[in-house]
């Protein structure tokens, strides 16, 4: 299907002036082009260029959000610089990640990783979560470093390492020198949850011995007489894992 350039021109003119409450029917050509774009390289390139132009100064938050949603479906490495520029902006960071989290390739992950240094607090947590959702192994050093910092950021870093769920991620979690060392602390709890995710992933991958070590470590930390719902749940997780890994251990002993 050939797309009428004039119709797209009109739709983008409407988009640049758009704000919440206005009629979005004018965007129909963009919606249709987005569906067709994956099968048409020229259309995709044109659409991406037009959408990234909306991310610059001028268009409203609503317009940028719309553009980010479309770029999340058809954006490529070409869209990354414009999206990355929005990461430090509290009004646009999430929707920039909405696109970057879905765009394949190292450029998007690099942008999120580089963006970590330029932000703090919730924006940093957002970027950490997107790197975790992408299972970005190259982020391991950066995430490991963040385990030692601000509590909420450290919790997010632990969660992201749990999403990576690799042996290296677990090693980082196990070795972390946490500033919050109380067993009931939020960071310590997040590390436990992440390590259990790493253990379950190791078990699923057939790395039973690795998994068993983690279950043993987590189980030992919570002890034999857990007193809280949370500690009992962790103990259950550890015991289930030990039960699942028991066969190989018995066979090899």
């Amino acid at each position, binding site marked *: 299907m050939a797309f009428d350039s004039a119709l797209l021109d009109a739709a983008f003119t409407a988009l640049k002036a758009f704000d919440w409450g206005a009629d979005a029917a004018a965007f129909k050509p963009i919606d249709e082009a987005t569906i067709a774009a994956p099968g048409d390289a020229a259309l995709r390139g044109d659409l991406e260029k037009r959408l990234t132009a909306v991310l610059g100064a001028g268009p409203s938050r609503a317009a940028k959000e719309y553009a980010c949603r479309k770029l999340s479906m058809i954006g490529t490495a070409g869209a990354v610089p414009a999206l990355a520029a929005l990461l430090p902006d509290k009004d646009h960071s999430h929707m920039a990640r909405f696109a970057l989290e879905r765009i394949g390739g190292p450029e998007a992950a690099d942008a999120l990783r580089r963006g970590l240094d330029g932000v703090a607090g919730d924006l940093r947590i957002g970027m950490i979560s997107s790197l975790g959702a992408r299972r970005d192994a190259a982020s391991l050093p950066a995430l490991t470093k963040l385990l030692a910092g601000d509590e909420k950021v450290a919790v997010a870093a632990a969660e992201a390492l749990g999403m990576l769920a690799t042996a290296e991620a677990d090693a980082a979690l196990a070795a972390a020198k946490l500033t919050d060392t109380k067993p009931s602390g939020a960071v310590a709890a997040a590390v436990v949850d992440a390590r259990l995710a790493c253990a379950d992933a190791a078990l699923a991958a057939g790395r039973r011995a690795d998994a068993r070590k983690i279950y043993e470590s987590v189980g030992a930390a919570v002890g034999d007489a857990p007193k809280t719902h949370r500690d*009992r749940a962790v103990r259950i997780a550890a015991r289930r894992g030990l039960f699942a890994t028991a066969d190989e251990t018995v066979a090899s002993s």
Partner: protein
Amino acid sequence: MVPSVSDDHDRPATPSRGAVGATRRGFLKAAGGGAAATAVAAPYVITSTALGNATTPPASDRIVMGGIGIGNMGGGDQGAFLSRPDVQYVAVCDVRQKWREQGKDKADAKNGNKDCAAYVDFRELLARDDIDAVHIATPDHWHAIMTIAACRSGKDVYLQKPETLTLREGPLMVAAARRYGRVVSGGSQRVLGDYRPIVDPCWAGEVGTIRSVHVALGAPSQPCYLPAQPTPPDIDWDLWLGPAPWEPYNSGRCDGNFGTGGNSWRSYVDYSGGSLTDWGAHHLGGAIFAADLRELQPVKATFHPEKNVTLTYPNGVELHYNRPPGDVPAGHAKVSHSAITIIGDGRPREAKPVPEYRDGEGNIYGDFIACVKTRGRPFRDIELAANSMTAPHLIGISLRLERSLQWDRAAQQFVNDAEANRLCDRARREPWIL
């Protein structure tokens, strides 16, 4: 894979604390003399409700519950749990003041005191160690985060349907439930309750081997461009949005009525899958149950030019979204009820017993509570719910991309389809992480 062991070896098969059979009441009875009795006897006051009576178990044998999201549906769930003598309802949580206050008032009236806590932030409710279980009836975009947090906190969960908003959420919720040994029940009371006219003959083998299932269902949700309105002081708008993209307050955006036509959150893509998942949880869930497909996920979604979809299951059964059956082949059998038609080859098969709720009373709430006590898997266990919800999600993505798809259940991804895989999940607004 960690085995699916349903017994919670750390939890006795009754809700009492500590060792099996040891209840607060039992301890008090045993402390009949000596120092222990002295330490217990004064100034300890034992209320009649704590000890229980002929119709109400003692407090130590009741399941302590709280509710998150106490609006239209959540209020109904709360009422159901409040009416149970084996539940002690102690806390409500809602970002809207009117629901919070209403929920607290209902619980206080039932309990005969003013003790029900009322929270704005669900994390405070989940941090309470006295709470055994929660029911969740927030908009869909919160379901996965809250359920996983509850599991990690050691709480069992009754979760309203539709249980998932994206494909990625189901496996994560199942993993959390299994990992921490939690009972997590989905909340479609209609799946078992509403479709018996087709469930019974299908499970009785009267239809023969099922070949096709046809479900009539509404449309997916749409983007929301409603204009900004002043945010009322009685709603925590930032927390209502939670992981969803920030957009300005508008009453039509967040109203919890059951509509999907543009005047409630069920209409909009950031919070719901629309009628496709909202009624899909019921109708597709009922169809999937009747056809005994709950353990399976589709392998293919075929998009038709009429803008409807056929899902194909690994056993060859086709589930058609908005494609009426047409003429039934000779010798085949057809059963219809509500929005569902099922066609089988008509050759009688051996009957299988229909799975039922475990409470023996035909009540999904009772089923959940029975499973909390016995650590069994509920009728709409989260894994079965997640499998069922795969159907409307695949339909929705097929409709959105206007083409056919192939689904790999083991990998939880579309096959060689980077574009479709982008739609398996969405980035959550900071600071929320799934």
